């Protein structure tokens, strides 16, 4: 690669790092403006803060509607392996060179909150749990989708194994890349929600979330945490990286 190209890519990477915070400000500044004109000026709603509050309220209302729409027995469509998207896209809030390097040998999955057994799990122990796989469609909030094959343990099996309070409302996740997110218990217990360790039959590669990714074909991509290092069961909504910036919390498909 020539030098100018390299400089350009560094600049883009720096800019991308700045994106989450500045994007938030952009949202506040631009939600109402349209080509310099205030779209709703003339209406009673001229205060940007009140518009944002109103939109957030509708988003919370939409969380409730989605929880109501969610059918725990309805399965996402599965596809033949021939339909797997190759190469499966890499997607994160950072660039490839920032993918965390997790050492599998001394890796331990922390388990906490409303669970009976809080011991940390090594990869060896996790691999011994009953494994299954699925070929499902990953849908990104941006609109694109890709079909992939993930393998691991059914999450409900794991939750029962650790004696989780299955009547609790949320399961929260913390990741090695400082990402965090949380899901509702009905989705956590869905038959296709898997704690995955493999992609397309191989150990989950770093770009897809080594050592593990929670894969849910009933949720949008940003709800599927990668590089999970800790999980906890709770009745207080733990929010999420993108969710706290304005993306819908439920994020269901």
């Amino acid at each position: 690669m020539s030098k100018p190209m390299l400089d350009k890519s560094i600049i883009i990477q720096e800019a991308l790092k700045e994106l989450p915070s500045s994007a938030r400000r952009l949202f506040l500044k631009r939600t109402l403006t349209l080509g310099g004109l205030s779209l709703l000026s003339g209406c009673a709603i001229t205060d940007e803060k009140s518009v944002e509050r109103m939109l957030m309220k509708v988003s919370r209302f939409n969380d409730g509607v989605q929880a109501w729409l969610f059918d725990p027995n309805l399965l996402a469509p599965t596809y033949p392996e021939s339909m797997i998207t190759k190469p499966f896209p890499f997607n994160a809030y950072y660039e490839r060179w920032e993918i965390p390097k997790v050492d599998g040998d001394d890796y331990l999955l922390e388990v906490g909150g409303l669970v009976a057994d809080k011991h940390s799990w090594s990869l060896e122990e996790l691999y011994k749990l009953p494994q299954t796989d699925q070929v499902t469609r990953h849908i990104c909030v941006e609109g694109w989708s890709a079909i992939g094959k993930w393998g691991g343990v059914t999450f409900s099996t794991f939750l029962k194994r650790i004696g989780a309070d299955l009547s609790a409302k949320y399961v929260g996740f913390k990741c090695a890349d400082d990402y965090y997110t949380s899901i509702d218990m009905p989705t956590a217990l869905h038959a296709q929600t898997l704690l995955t360790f493999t992609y397309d039959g191989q150990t989950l590669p770093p770009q897809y979330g080594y050592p593990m990714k929670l894969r849910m074909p009933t949720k949008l991509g940003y709800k599927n945490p990668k590089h999970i290092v800790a999980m906890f069961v709770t009745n207080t909504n733990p929010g999420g990286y993108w969710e706290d910036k304005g993306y819908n919390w439920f994020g269901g498909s």
Partner: protein
Amino acid sequence: MNSNKKIIHPVWLRVSHWINLIAVVIMVLSGWEIYNAAPIFDFSFPEQITLGGWLAGALMWHFAAMWLLVFNGLIYLSINILSGRLQNRFFPIRGRDLRGAFINALKGKLAHDYLTQYNAVQKLVYLLVIADVILLVLSGLVIWKPVQFPLLRELMGDYDNARIVHFLAMVAVLAFTVVHVVMVVLVPKTFLMMIRGR
């Protein structure tokens, strides 16, 4: 003279028309910002004419205005059907009338002497745009909840196809709006009618 005094557009129709305009404008402009996050075709919409500022903002607008569009649309359709207005104003559409009205429209002879009555082309176009908005809502449901609406998903030909259907239905609404506004400019009385009712 007499027909001039008569209320042609009842108040519920006028209110729902303008609410629909607000809902459609928000849906389309925020929809363009959402489209830009992962364009289906080889172009993006200029940021200046989109709503939301970034993807999350646009999604919030889109999924707030959808309630306005859907509930306003349901109220419009219910009153329209139950009051018999839909039947009276839009049916029957005869092929013969359709041809005649279309040729007249092309010649620039707009039959606006009788504003109480739609000509055959108007009847057809208004019915088509109602069907198109229904298609927009249904394809939107598949994009929003592909797992929860399996039958609709299969009808649309899976998730990726539903996005294309949703986009094309949006283009159809835009095409309708352009023609609709041109007609209103040509026959300004109709604009007053949608405000005053007569």
